[in-house]
């Protein structure tokens, strides 16, 4: 039985919908219960429900064979995983946000708040910018609102949260989507089954 890691966060509903279109309904999993590990014999998988930042490590270390996770989390983790497809649903963007008129170069060191310090460092280096990176665990958009930071690097979906706080998108850093991720060794062991599943996701129009 293969072990599938699912993200507990905002992407779970998108992943479930996409997988269901490909015939992996996961109907037997009790998502409202307290059990984070459940076997679904009818689906041929054992499911783990994990916090998003932890999921790449579980798959990289082979505790889970495959899973689904946002590309923002995947890239921040630096995990060595295979990524056969990206799902159509759940797209958003990673953007630099701040008060209108915020300048990135203004003679003093920029303060940047984010949940993605590694991604932030790479982006700053690509732009030739320096900044004090303030690593936060949530409500990142509050940092520029309340003056903890000048800007924030955060996920933007509709932009309504930004507008509600008087913030604007200063720059789109990259598009974010949900990735199917697979352990490198598990791919070799279960290649036929995984290819078949990816084929079904593609046939169902669930992938980009």
């Amino acid at each position: 039985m293969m072990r599938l890691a699912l993200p507990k966060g905002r992407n779970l509903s998108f992943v479930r919908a996409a997988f269901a279109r490909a015939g992996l309904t996961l109907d037997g999993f009790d998502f409202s219960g307290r059990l984070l590990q459940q076997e679904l014999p009818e689906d041929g998988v054992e499911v783990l429900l994990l916090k998003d930042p932890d999921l790449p490590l579980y798959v990289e270390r082979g505790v889970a064979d495959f899973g689904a996770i946002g590309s923002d989390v995947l890239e921040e983790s630096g995990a060595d995983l295979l990524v056969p497809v990206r799902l159509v649903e759940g797209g958003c963007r990673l953007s630099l946000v701040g008060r209108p008129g915020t300048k990135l170069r203004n003679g003093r060191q920029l303060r940047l708040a984010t949940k993605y310090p590694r991604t932030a460092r790479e982006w700053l280096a690509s732009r030739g910018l320096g900044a004090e990176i303030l690593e936060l665990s949530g409500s990142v958009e509050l940092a520029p609102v309340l003056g903890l930071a000048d800007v924030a690097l955060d996920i933007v979906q509709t932009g309504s949260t930004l507008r509600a706080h008087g913030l604007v998108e200063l720059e789109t850093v990259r598009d974010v989507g949900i990735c199917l991720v697979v352990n490198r060794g598990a791919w070799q062991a279960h290649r036929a089954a995984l290819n078949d599943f990816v084929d079904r996701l593609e046939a169902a129009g669930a992938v980009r």
Partner: protein
Amino acid sequence: MRISAELPIGVAALIGAAATRLRRLEGLLAGELEADGFEEALLPLLDYVDPYQPILGAAAQAELYRFVDRDGELLAVRADFTPMLARLLAPRLEALGRPARVFYRGEVVRRDADHPGRRRALWQLGAEILGVEGEAAEHEALERFLGLLARAGVAAPRIVVSVAGALDRVLQQGRSRSEALGLAAAVERRDRSMVRAVPALLGVVESGLPADLGSLGDDRLAARLEHLETWCRHLETTHPGLMVRLDLAEFAGQTIDPELAGTSGARSYYDGLVFRAFAGRGFLPVGSGGRYDSLYQRLGAATTAVGFSIGLDRLVEVLEEDPPRAAIVTLGRTNEVPR
């Protein structure tokens, strides 16, 4: 005064039974190699950085822990046995005689980004075969590698085999260097959306080989891969429980074209057969190897060179697991075969 027992990220101490387990495994495998005529090389933990500048790519250079000693010399901690052994053996090959069979054991230390679960200090045992011509060297290296895994008690390893540079020509067609390297990375990730426009690579991503080997643009390579495929099937019949797969995607980044080489990862010296073994419940990588004639040639030594290394701490981890259950799996139903 309380002294902290905390160690730096990525390193571990083994004490008592844990240390005994690793040393016993190391001794078992070293004994096998010695019995087969391999001579041990005890290599230093520190070396100058300068001799490695011409032979290590950017990724390999980046993983070195470097420091300036009291005499102002730039030194590095050993990160990889193969280049160190090559630099020390290349001037001595005439005295050693050919073929030379050498093995080593010990730690390598690699500077890695702070990544949960990733080790920076690794216990390894490896072997090198120098001066054996043609495929015989590759066959010997892989057979010895498999033999050591079996001797250690690894059940049902998965071996992936390829040829370094096999995809170079396809990757470079009409692409800039950065585009070709990006495409190589996408192939290694099995990223269908990125390779969809290149039919030959889509086949490689899905099944390890293109449907038509001729699409790789190299008749000699196509013939070699056919021969390699035959040999892989032979290995499976002679090693029950073994799975050997020819998969060009696994090593898509292992380029040899000078336009691409040097940027394809820390072990970018492979220039022929390459292989990697996965084992255990989590299919963890437990060892790898391949051919690297050009590494010695760059050091002025005209010799063939094929070798492999086994990750001893990873191997101990795998051997301490409960036996895995073999399963024939379709996502949607399972026919589970208890082992």
